[in-house]
């Protein structure tokens, strides 16, 4: 009962740090729009990205489901997969093309999806930049390595 002052509005019990002349900092919204927000860049990149997601998505449904069906269900299931099985399939240009298209579409589709996730969720420009750099590096590496393997696959390797 030492403090007989008027009770604070929201029942703050200890000594408050803030008053009329020294208000608490408000919590700013992330990356809010101001007058300085850059104006339109006049490129169609985002539109093509959006379209690519729709079109590659349709193709990937066929490619990936077909791939899973062949690999895991038909003709003995997953136990049949071995070096010989892969070598046999990649002897045909059709399956080479199938796997190549699937690799590129899936990687670019996934990378573009993650890019939008990073754009949506990373708050600071630095975090945004480095996450995207990491993503692009990983994507380019995987796509190039996969392409290299499909084209230079040697069934007689020891």
């Amino acid at each position, binding site marked *: 009962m030492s403090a007989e002052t008027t009770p604070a509005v*929201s*029942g703050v019990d200890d000594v408050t740090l803030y008053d009329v002349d020294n208000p608490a900092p*408000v919590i700013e919204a992330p990356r809010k729009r101001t007058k300085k927000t850059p*104006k339109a860049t*006049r490129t169609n990149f985002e539109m093509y990205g959006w379209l690519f997601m729709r079109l590659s998505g349709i193709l990937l449904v066929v490619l990936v489901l077909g791939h899973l069906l062949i690999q895991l269900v038909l003709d003995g299931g997953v136990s049949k997969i071995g070096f010989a099985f892969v070598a046999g399939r990649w002897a045909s240009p059709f399956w080479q093309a199938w796997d190549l298209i699937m690799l590129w579409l899936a990687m670019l589709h996934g990378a573009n999806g993650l890019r939008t996730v990073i754009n949506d969720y990373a708050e600071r420009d630095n975090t945004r930049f480095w996450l995207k750099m990491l993503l692009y590096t990983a994507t380019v590496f995987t796509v190039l390595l996969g392409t290299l393997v499909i084209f230079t696959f040697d069934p007689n390797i020891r």
Partner: protein
Amino acid sequence: MATPTLEKAESPAEVSPYITVTFRVRRFNPEVSAEATWQDFQVEIDPKERVLDGLHKIKWDLDGSLTFRRSCAHGICGSDAMRINGKNRLACKTLIKDINPEKPITVEPIKGLTVLKDLVVDMEPFFQAYRDVMPFLITKGNEPTRERLQSAEDRERFDDTTKCILCAACTSSCPVFWNDGQYFGPAAIVNAHRFIFDSRDEAGEQRLEILNDKDGVWRCRTTFNCTDACPRGIEVTKAIQEVKRALITRRF
């Protein structure tokens, strides 16, 4: 007791329409504390009244320091959008009986904008996005000596998006906007749509170019939060999709 009819006061029931409702309001006062806290208010209120009437009772009878915006109080000015029971609504269009008065009714400021005090947020980023889509008629050539006429079908094309009252219920319900305020947000796109599809306007191309940007319509994730939140029943997500379609058909 509160009914103004004097003759019927003798009726046997004599049931008071008033019930006790708990309002759980998100309070924030930077002059007192950096923390936002919940405060409960018990209010005697007719369930046929609105949440705004409850807030008025609190402000006028219980705690004059409660701060919120309202102007017309009839769903036209768009000042009192707030998050009531976790959903963005206009306090002046939400009846107590419609949102289960048995449980405490939570009232929060709309999300994604800086809270200044209690239920008042800084609307400036929202209006900046609105300004950036140029929400005014742009034409070329000489001004006609009479009204710019338009057929009923041409008017019908953008009728839905003329209903916007700029309350920010849609923009502040958008998860993309919560995380990144650079996104134009549904309300700005709705107001761009209103002019893009207006046959009298001649700057549709310019507005489409603005919305083609990385912070424009392509950031929409079609979560339909905006359509659910709109107190005017505008099909906001549909309007955004129409702008997307216009952008694509413009190219191909």
